[in-house]
């Protein structure tokens, strides 16, 4: 049953049709989550007892950092699926995730740096958390570069999948770096087994922002995958039929 759904979903014409139907709904959901998250984070959430209003950068920084790791895992797993089962759509999902993930990683690094200067007293320090997140950005850039460097896109996808799978080792290092080593970066506030060490009024907008970022990624992924699919399948019959219907 599940496998049948996967096979159906991964057929290019079906994916192309259903993703077009999903996009408007996802956009509405994204705008609702983002609107509530921003309003809650910037207006209704109380200021922090130590950092004052500067803490509000958490509403961009933390969801961006979560997404940078989440997208990497999605990219590696779909790359692995493409490698084993040679499913074209899995390869496309994998490479379409890379630039979205790189953007979120960059955003997390920049917002963290802007917060670090007033709070820590330094734009950048070479502690384990910051360094491993920077390595993640380089992994993303390496994947994008490798993919565009190989002419045949199916070969490129396979090379990229192996690089992505090798880089997976960095994900637990990023997450646990603040526990394994002494770092200037603080420990986990929300993603731990204990109760989150953040006041509930501050936490709820954060979760909405995290949801908004996740939906945004899904929208960007669908749009990019559709483009990539059209480019790869430009000679396929189903695209001709699609164009017939447009006329």
């Amino acid at each position, binding site marked *: 049953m599940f496998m049948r759904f996967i096979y159906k979903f991964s057929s290019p014409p079906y994916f192309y049709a259903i993703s077009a139907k999903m996009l408007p709904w996802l956009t509405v959901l994204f705008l609702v989550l983002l609107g509530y998250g921003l309003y809650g984070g910037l207006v209704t959430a109380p200021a922090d007892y130590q950092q004052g209003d500067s803490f509000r950068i958490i509403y961009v920084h933390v969801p961006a950092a979560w997404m940078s790791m989440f997208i990497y895992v999605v990219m590696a797993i779909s790359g692995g699926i493409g490698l084993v089962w040679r499913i074209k759509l899995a390869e496309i999902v994998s490479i379409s995730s890379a630039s979205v993930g790189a953007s979120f990683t960059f955003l997390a690094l920049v917002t963290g740096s802007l917060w670090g200067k007033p709070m820590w007293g330094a734009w950048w320090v070479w*502690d384990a958390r910051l360094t491993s997140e920077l390595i993640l950005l380089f992994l993303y850039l390496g994947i994008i570069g490798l993919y565009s460097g190989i002419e045949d896109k199916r070969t490129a996808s396979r090379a990229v999948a192996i690089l992505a799978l090798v880089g997976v080792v960095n994900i637990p290092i990023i997450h646990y770096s603040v526990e394994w080593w002494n770092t*200037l970066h603080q420990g986990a506030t929300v993603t731990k087994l204990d109760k989150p060490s953040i006041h509930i009024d501050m936490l709820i907008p954060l979760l909405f922002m995290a949801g908004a970022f996740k939906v945004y990624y899904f929208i960007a992924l669908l749009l990019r995958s559709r483009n990539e699919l059209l480019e790869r399948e430009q000679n396929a019959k189903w695209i001709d039929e699609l164009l017939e219907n447009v006329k």
Partner: protein
Amino acid sequence: MRIVKKKRLMLILLMITGIFIATFFGLRAFNDNLMYFFSATDVVEGKAPKDHLFRLGGMVVKGSVVRQPSGLTVQFVLTDMAKEVTVQYTGILPDLFREGQGIVANGKLDANGIFIAQEVLAKHDENYMPPEVAGSMKKVPTEATP
């Protein structure tokens, strides 16, 4: 065909396992280099380097901050709840610096065992709460300016 896929899957899993093991040993070997700072206990026990710069992290002991009347020199005691080290610093302290705050200082020990800092960074903790909650929880001093 199924055998081929199974083989590919096993190869990938083998590769990932190998990489995780290799990284684990690599990180273990460089464990000390990956520490961003030494604790007060490390310094007292002589694990910290004697003759070159290193970072010392800990909490500023309440009531230990002494500002010298002339200039910007501040002296305070850092603790890791076990051992204590006295730190001297000349310069502007970050906004979050206050008694009871975690900080990281970069510098070296002088002959008397006092840590002469060249740079002081504030380490924020993972707790976020509104001022009213913090006030009712542990009576944060009102001089805490944002």
